[in-house]
């Protein structure tokens, strides 16, 4: 179709049909402010902060929700449009706590940015002030804190939970001024079918949805001389935490990350990639066994705790298809408090394990009743990427000036296969590398599955044809699972990550996030793998040693006890 001619603030512009006024203005360098709009979500048109004046009809229209039509002329800078945008922001502020200094999103708040750029002053808001929303804050966790008093009802969380995740744990309730976003029957987060993925928090423009912080707990452990604090950092963190310190998305800062963790006072600085290799040893062998026995297929990954909880609520009948292998984080912690404690002669009771995760669901996973196989709670604290960045900032550590350092010996060793766990498709690729080589002795070419939505591939391994599929975003996952449920799934192996793009798009990652940023983060992760000398989990020398010294065989008795788990059916709502 041919382009559409419009005029924005007297400038003639040609744009593609279907472009919104908001994006048309962006193309000529005019950023119209908005709050409810989000490029990954359906149109909502609620905040009315992006209004512009349609010069032909004389009406103010929401630029996000108005598609261009031929000959349209509109003004972003007319007095009416300019004042209307301000007034709507002022109205939001008149019912907002405005306690920016103490807010988790101070500095990353989109409302704060808009107030700043529009130059709204306190007196503009004071004249509109009256009653303010006063609703109970849900902070019992396990993963997320919801403060409806800060909420501006933009509905991004509601749409994310429904459209991207297919969970619909959050909805609008009540009417008029009493409207809020809440859970069914206002139940706390722990009592609902929430997957704890935290995607809502990544789209929230203000501080209404944030992770439950464990920073204080971790400081306390570090400051306790009797505690031996071991930290592990998930594969994706090295490609994302740089953003908190001004680096371009996808910049790999592994060396600085290890150095910063040491500066914070952790006794040992390790990588979850070590146990990601271990996961492949267990899960790869488990898949092989299922494939050979034609049992519980398709084999579905279980390293994503958001996905696991979603399955427990919505697909309890398919729990046998999930790999029984624990997630890398949990494998790491069980080994740290058993094998590593023994090796280093440390009392496991004094070991405090901290996991730096891209994920809010990991906070829930660590507290699961199944996660005590070391004889203690395996993982003691989980920090998101954002929380770790905050600790580094609190200590005044100049991240960008740090010299690169390595992870500590043994549980820092890893392969490229482990690194790619950080992005969608990574687990599958890592698993297939090991499975194919074990079966045929031949190495695997890159699978190159895409980052978005559902992707699949077919590969011939010896005399077998294996079909694999990956899905990220739980609404996408549900499509694959419904097929499995109906017995119509063509796949042998399915990888599911709750968050779009996998862990690089996790609910605990730096804000704000966009699809473009997530693409770059994922590309960064793949680039590390490309440069690695050892790229297959079964070739990790420390993993080989771990099996020789301690575990015996994959799926063996000790492995079964420490590295595998069970799932529980949970109510649908």
């Amino acid at each position, binding site marked *: 179709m041919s382009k559409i001619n419009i005029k924005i603030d007297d400038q003639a512009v040609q744009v593609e049909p279907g472009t919104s006024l908001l994006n048309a203005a962006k193309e000529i360098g005019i950023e119209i402010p908005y709050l409810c709009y989000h490029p990954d979500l359906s149109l909502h048109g609620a905040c009315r*902060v992006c*209004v512009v004046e349609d010069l032909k009809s004389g009406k103010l229209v929401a630029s996000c929700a*108005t598609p261009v039509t031929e000959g349209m002329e509109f003004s972003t800078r007319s007095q009416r449009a300019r004042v209307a945008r301000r007034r709507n922001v002022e*109205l*939001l502020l*008149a019912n907002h706590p405005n306690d920016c200094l103490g807010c988790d999103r101070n500095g990353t708040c989109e409302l704060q940015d808009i107030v700043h750029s529009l130059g709204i002053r306190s007196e503009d808001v004071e004249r509109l002030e009256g009653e303010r929303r006063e609703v109970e804050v849900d902070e019992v966790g396990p993963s997320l804190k919801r403060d409806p008093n800060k909420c501006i009802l933009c509905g991004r969380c509601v749409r994310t939970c429904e459209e991207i995740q297919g969970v619909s744990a959050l909805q*609008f309730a*009540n*009417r*008029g001024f009493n409207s809020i976003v809440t859970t069914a029957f206002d139940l706390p987060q722990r009592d609902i079918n929430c997957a704890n993925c935290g995607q809502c928090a990544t789209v929230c423009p203000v501080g209404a949805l944030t992770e439950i912080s464990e920073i204080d707990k971790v400081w306390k452990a570090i400051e306790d001389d009797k505690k031996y604090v071991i930290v592990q950092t998930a594969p994706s963190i090295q490609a994302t935490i740089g953003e908190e310190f001004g680096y371009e998305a996808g910049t790999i800062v592994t060396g600085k990350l290890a150095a910063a963790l040491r500066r914070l006072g952790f006794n040992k600085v390790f990588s979850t990639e070590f146990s990601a290799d271990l996961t492949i040893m267990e899960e790869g062998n488990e898949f092989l066994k299922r494939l050979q026995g034609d049992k519980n297929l398709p084999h579905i990954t279980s390293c994503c705790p958001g996905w696991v909880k979603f399955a427990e609520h919505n697909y309890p009948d398919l729990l046998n298809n999930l790999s029984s292998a624990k997630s890398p984080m949990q494998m790491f912690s069980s080994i740290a408090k058993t094998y590593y404690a023994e090796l280093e002669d440390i009392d496991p009771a004094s070991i405090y394990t901290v996991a730096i995760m891209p994920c809010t669901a990991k906070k829930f996973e660590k507290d699961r009743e199944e996660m005590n196989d070391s004889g203690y709670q395996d993982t003691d604290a989980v920090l998101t990427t954002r929380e770790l960045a905050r600790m580094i900032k609190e200590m005044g550590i100049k991240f960008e000036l740090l010299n690169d350092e390595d992870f500590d010996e043994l549980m820092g060793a890893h392969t490229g296969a482990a690194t790619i766990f950080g992005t969608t498709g990574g687990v599958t690729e890592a698993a297939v590398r090991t499975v194919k080589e074990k079966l045929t002795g031949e190495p695997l070419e890159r699978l190159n599955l895409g980052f978005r939505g559902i992707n699949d591939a077919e590969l011939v391994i010896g005399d077998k044809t294996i079909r694999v599929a990956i899905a990220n975003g739980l609404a996408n996952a549900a499509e694959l699972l419904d097929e499995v449920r109906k017995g119509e799934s063509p796949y042998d192996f399915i990888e599911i990550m709750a968050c779009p793009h996998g862990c690089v798009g996790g609910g605990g990652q730096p804000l704000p996030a966009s699809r473009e940023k997530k693409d770059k983060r994922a590309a960064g992760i793949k680039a590390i793998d490309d440069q690695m000398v050892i790229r297959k989990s079964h070739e990790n020398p420390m993993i080989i040693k771990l099996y020789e010294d301690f575990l015996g065989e994959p799926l063996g008795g000790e492995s079964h006890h420490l590295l595998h788990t069970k799932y529980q059916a949970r109510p649908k709502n």
Partner: protein
Amino acid sequence: MKDIIYRSHILICTGTGCTSSGAKKMRIALEDELAERNLNKEVKIIETGCHGFCEKGPIVVVYPEGVFYCEVKSEDIPELVEEHLLKGRIVERLLFKEPVTEENIPSYHDIQFYKKQERIVLSNCGKIDPENIDEYIALGGYEAVGKALSSMSQKDVIAEVKNSGLRGRGGGGFPTGLKWQFAHEAVSNKKYVICNADEGDPGAFMDRSLLEGDPHRVIEGMIIAGYAIGADEGYLYVRAEYPLAIKRLEKAISQAEDYGLLGDDLFSSGYNFKLHIKKGAGAFVCGEETALMASIEGKRGMPRPRPPYPANSGLWGKPTNINNVETYGNIPYIIKNGAEEYSKIGTENSKGTKVFALTGKINNTGLVEVPMGTTLREVIYDIGGGLGEGMKYKAVQTGGPSGGCITSEHLDLPIDYDSLLGVGAMMGSGGMVVMDDGTCMVDVARFFLNFTQSESCGKCTPCREGTKRMLEILERICEGEGEDGDIALLEDLAHHIKDTALCGLGQTAPNPVLSTLKYFRHEYEAHIFDHKCPAGVCKDLASAYLIDKETCVGCSICAKACPVDAITGTPKESYQIDDDICISCGVCASKCPVSAISQG
């Protein structure tokens, strides 16, 4: 079986209004009385829908004479049967008495209330048994759909409706034929028609009465619309608070299905159409078309931005035509009698009739249908019988919470879509609330803002937050806490909300404020600057009472009557009121035997 031929038919209105005034009880009494006197083979009782004259319910009409009785109670039944049915004498005391002439009027058509009405949509209401499809058919029902399906193309039907000049009766006044054309032109293998019966304006009951009194008319209108746009399925969205309307619709649908008027291959034309009823939970905002469709889909009733319009992407994303009850109610007449005949009624740009729900300080509360172009004066004084005794006309509020006031200077305004907009009011769905000089216009604005604020879906910022701030200011003014600058802020917010709210509910929410500010600004100013409520409605502003020392005889009756002990004095001398304690209840003034107490 041979049909019994009855010598008399007694029509009892069992619409919601008459039912609540005791029509059901009276009907049982009548049945018993007829049985006792062995008249049940001679006189037939028929339950009808609303006659519109709800003020005077329960209403009974006796045919063949056509005598119109009102306010008939069970106790009146023996006399009615004895006198009218046995002796053939009219029961004078149960006739309608014209308020002005005090004359007893026996016939329907001679009552002023009906004289100036032109009943097209309501023509069958009160005349037929709405639960009997044969009665609708006997009066020409389903002829229009037969004509459309057997002799008109889809385009012919649309052209007829376009030429009739019919505009949407739900509030916006969009040309109906054009709306149908858009839905007709949308390409899809599935389309829907929806009837919006989510009537929610305070005091409005036009749609309810039509659905209760003549459900088949609306169904027929919908079938024709469905045929015209190419839809094979329709939904009637009726609020659950209208149980009688729902019951009668259910019955009507099932009868139409039995008669082959709904279902497959209607009139052997190959056209299929089925209808469903969806009960709404009573949210005002669900009257907004996109919210209504969300509600049918099982979602929270919240409006969404348009475009896309329902004609292209409506219910479940399919092209959908959505009209109001009364709009569909006009369709059978248009198709049967032709656009030319229809367009003779009304004004240049507003054709046909409009049904209004006349309420407030008026003698004849009820439902009236008048040709477009009738003046407000005719509606209020000729049909409505004017205001109650001693009351002075102040304004009429039209269009409910989205509308505005019309003052006495516009009483001779011919009512149509455009004239009402011109004076800052709107047609809306047809609510008409008459107010007298004892009405405080700031309080009226506060009432409507309170309504829209509590009915706002909470989606968009200006409606959710803005109407709340406006309401707070109005409450402040009514409580005597108004400040200099409040009026300016009200106007600022009102224009802002009008300009930027997402849906019609929000965009029109400030109208009652803007309209009262336009015509009664002095009342706002009196509240704010003089701390007075001219109408004496706002309690916090009612001025304190004063005892005139000269007149007071020191009887002490006032002091004893005062509920808050604000009056002190010496018996046989004089008494005084303490302003700080007085709550301006007025009890003292009403008890004073020498009228020495008045409001200062």
